[in-house]
């Protein structure tokens, strides 16, 4: 039976960690994810779980120790944010290329600079090509649910890749909201025991992890890793279905909110999706056919599935909570557009950058965006293909 409770996003993830009771957690504190290792170490001190907590001197070390522990045969994880994730950069690729099914609880915070502690997705997006599966949450409930699904995805034989469970810094990590918690035994049963076939601390069965690879092997290894990422899509869907069967909630690759007959769709990720849904309900009351496609899984990127989900609408606003500095839009925009083109779905699109470094995203902002893409589709209004939301400028809208 689910139990009604209320807690913050950080509390929810720490609670899920306690229930899963992984073997090893090396971690280094950084705002706004600090509470996660702090709460887990309290659970450990109180004897509520027996995870081995390793205090380390940096995030470079926490990810290294996570990989080491995972390779040794222990179910491992760490947590971080922002610059902490950036400092792990080298190790993130090593975790993935060594096919380590470890987990990282990421609490999204902007990357410097200008230095700032608030939410955007620049940390997670910066790690988008490191070979990690990335799953984003709208609220504390999804952060909790996604964490419970992380190991079953990562440890599946078709995958063996690390998983990043992401939630929005402060907006969900520090917000107390209602949540449904599951029984310890049900969570443990869902996640199962970790029984790796091969691991370093296996007496009589020695192995080597991460050997040097000359050019004649490395490209094949990379391809195999990419295949595992492609395969992970079906595993993520299977695990999500199993989760829904057992606990009665959740989404697969993305949530389609009132998109079935929608003319105008906002494609968005994270906590702002809830705000966008409220705007959709309000606009629907006025007879405007609006909808939201909330992306849950960013890696692997469901390009074809998104294109199919959007193919009947007139215009889509693609919302990036980060800047790519590529001169033509954020990462979501680039990838969604590639998916649309490849599937020959020639609808109107506008790429928006919003919410950088904690800039608020309101229901009113969502109205304005829907209004603009409606104008584009209906009246052929010409707008810049890459727009900034709520920017102060002498030249007006950007």
């Amino acid at each position, binding site marked *: 039976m689910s139990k009604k409770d209320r807690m913050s996003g950080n509390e929810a993830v720490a609670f899920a960690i306690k229930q899963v009771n992984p073997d090893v957690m090396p971690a280094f504190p950084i705002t706004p994810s600090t509470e996660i290792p702090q709460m887990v170490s309290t659970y450990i001190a109180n004897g509520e779980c027996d995870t081995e907590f390793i205090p380390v001197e940096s995030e470079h070390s926490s990810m290294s120790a996570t990989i080491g522990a995972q390779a040794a045969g222990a179910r491992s994880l760490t947590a971080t944010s922002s610059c902490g994730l950036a400092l792990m950069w080298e190790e993130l690729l090593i975790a993935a290329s060594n096919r380590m099914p470890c987990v990282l609880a990421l609490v999204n915070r902007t990357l410097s600079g200008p230095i700032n502690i608030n939410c955007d997705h620049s940390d997670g997006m910066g790690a988008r090509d490191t070979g990690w599966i990335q799953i984003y949450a709208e609220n504390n409930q999804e952060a909790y649910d996604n964490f419970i699904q992380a190991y079953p995805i990562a440890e599946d034989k078709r995958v063996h890749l690390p998983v990043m469970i992401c939630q*929005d810094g*402060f907006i969900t990590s520090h917000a107390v*909201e*209602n949540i449904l918690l599951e029984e310890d035994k049900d969570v443990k049963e869902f996640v199962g025991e970790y029984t790796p076939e091969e691991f370093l601390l296996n007496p009589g069965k020695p192995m080597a992890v991460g050997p040097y690879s000359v050019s004649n092997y490395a490209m094949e290894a990379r391809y195999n890793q990419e295949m595992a990422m492609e395969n992970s899509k079906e595993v993520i869907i299977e695990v999500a279905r199993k989760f829904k069967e057992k606990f009665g909630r959740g989404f697969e690759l993305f949530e389609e909110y009132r998109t079935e007959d929608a003319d105008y769709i906002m494609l968005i990720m994270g906590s702002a999706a809830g705000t966008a849904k409220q705007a959709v309900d309000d606009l629907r009351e006025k007879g405007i056919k609006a909808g939201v496609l909330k992306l849950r899984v960013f890696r692997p990127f469901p390009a074809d599935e998104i294109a199919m989900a959007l193919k009947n609408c007139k215009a889509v606003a693609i919302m990036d909570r980060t800047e790519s500095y590529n001169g033509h839009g954020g990462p979501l925009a680039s990838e969604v557009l590639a998916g649309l083109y490849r599937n020959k779905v020639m609808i109107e699109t506008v790429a928006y950058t919003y919410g950088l470094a904690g800039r*608020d995203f309101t*229901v009113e902002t969502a109205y304005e965006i829907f209004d603009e893409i409606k104008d584009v589709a209906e009246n052929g209004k010409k707008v810049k293909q890459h727009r900034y939301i709520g920017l102060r400028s002498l030249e007006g809208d950007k």
Partner: protein
Amino acid sequence: MDNKGIEIRWHGRGGQGAKSAALLLADVAFKTGAYVQGFPEYGPERMGAPITAYNRISNKEIRVHSNIYTPDLVIVVDETLLAAVDVTKGLKKEGAIVVNTDKSADEIKPLLNGYEGRVYTVDARRISMEALGKYFPNSPMLAAAVAVGKVMDTKQFLDEMKASYAHKFAKKPEVIDGNMKALSLTLEELGEV
């Protein structure tokens, strides 16, 4: 509280407990079966700097994750903020504001940029000193938020808070009575709202 729920904005100074009060309010409102949200807006995390915290409480699921710009209720935990922050900005006319001060509502009104709605004052310093012997403004302000915001029945509020303090202060039972006294004194002084 009607179906649309209530939106509350807290103004305080870093370290005064405005964020904790907002989280406590979410906590206690949750006990009524409501959907709740309690969250802080962080600046550079300096002790004494103006901070804002928010609550949404509703009978319907809360999905919006933005700050609150047109609150039904504003709670000012530190009177000195009236000079520094536009605390009534966006506050609904049919809403209310509660200020922690030893002054009367009539004395405070002229400092509220012409706000025409209901104004209440709570002398949290005196109440806290009397009840706890120390200055912790958040218990009186929490009680005021519940009463003025009609978040829940005040009797149920006191019962829930007693249980919550008993849990929170299991190792310091001596502060439970003081905190409870601070809550009930505030409710008494506010009277009918």
